[in-house]
């Protein structure tokens, strides 16, 4: 069998942490991927990559959590579970220790996710358009011209339209 440097096995564990961090992975699973005993694995991983496998996996998860806090409007608990962590309490503690602020304060220090997401103008134009489509001037129009989606036959005033546009 071809010689495989031991660091190749360690890289397999690191790749697993990178790829599957959102699953309930533990250091034991990483050790298994590297085909090493838990204690030996932790020592070797630290030697090769300069930090413990636990620290690597945790910071991988925290980096993803920070990205989700900036780029989504999901709740802190949802984000905690979606990066593979099981306890919101421990997540908040680790996050605060790492970033110097709580997840909520971290999120508040960035523009709202809807701005961060940079939803393009064409999408705003299509979706933010008011849904009521019957205007006073249309009252005399043939009903067959209407697509039937208007709920309010009383019309839609210019102020409403202006407000809707401001939202865009």
């Amino acid at each position, binding site marked *: 069998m071809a010689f495989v440097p031991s660091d190749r096995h360690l890289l397999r564990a690191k790749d697993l942490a*990178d*790829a*599957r961090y*959102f699953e309930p992975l533990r250091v034991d699973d990483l050790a298994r991927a590297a085909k090493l005993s838990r204690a030996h694995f932790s020592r070797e991983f630290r030697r090769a990559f300069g930090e413990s496998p636990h620290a690597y996996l945790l910071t991988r998860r925290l980096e*993803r959590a920070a*990205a*989700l806090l900036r*780029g*989504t*409007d*999901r709740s802190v608990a949802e984000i905690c579970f*979606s990066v593979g962590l099981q306890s919101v309490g421990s997540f908040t503690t680790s996050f605060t220790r790492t970033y110097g602020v709580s997840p909520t304060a971290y999120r508040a220090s960035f523009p709202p*996710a*809807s701005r*961060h*997401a*940079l*939803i393009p103008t064409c*999408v*705003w134009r*299509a*979706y*933010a*358009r008011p*849904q009521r*489509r019957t205007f006073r001037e249309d009252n005399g129009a043939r009903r067959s011209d209407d*697509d039937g*989606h208007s709920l309010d036959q009383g019309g839609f005033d210019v102020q409403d339209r202006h407000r*809707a546009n401001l*939202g*865009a």
Partner: protein
Amino acid sequence: MYRIATAQIWVHDQDEALEFYTQKLGMEVHSDVTVPEMGNFRWLTVGPPGQEDVSIVLMAIPSPPVMDAETAEQVKTLMAKGFAGTVFLTTDDVQASYEELKKRGVEFVEEPEERPYGIDSAFRDPSGNNFRLTEVRETANV
């Protein structure tokens, strides 16, 4: 001069798509925002790990008045027939990627096979969108 930042594909169900693209394909969520002023429109984008500047928008098929019902049906029909577009992915090791994705439950419609340009395979997302996964041969060797 310019670069591709984001491209959009239609999906039947955003939650189902999200699960597929993240849990099975291993992509990361770049944005997931629901905007009340846009009739609860959900802007959901994902991308491969390590390519933060390239996103795919997983776009729900809109209802009227954004898209009329007839057009929406046409889009659904195109997706069901596999004609709604293709995303081309490349990988350094198609056999390893194929085995990994298959293990995670991705259904391949073409197993990796030698082609003049490399080794190529194909799968679909739950909406029927076509994906090709290719290990491209070095140009010098073609």
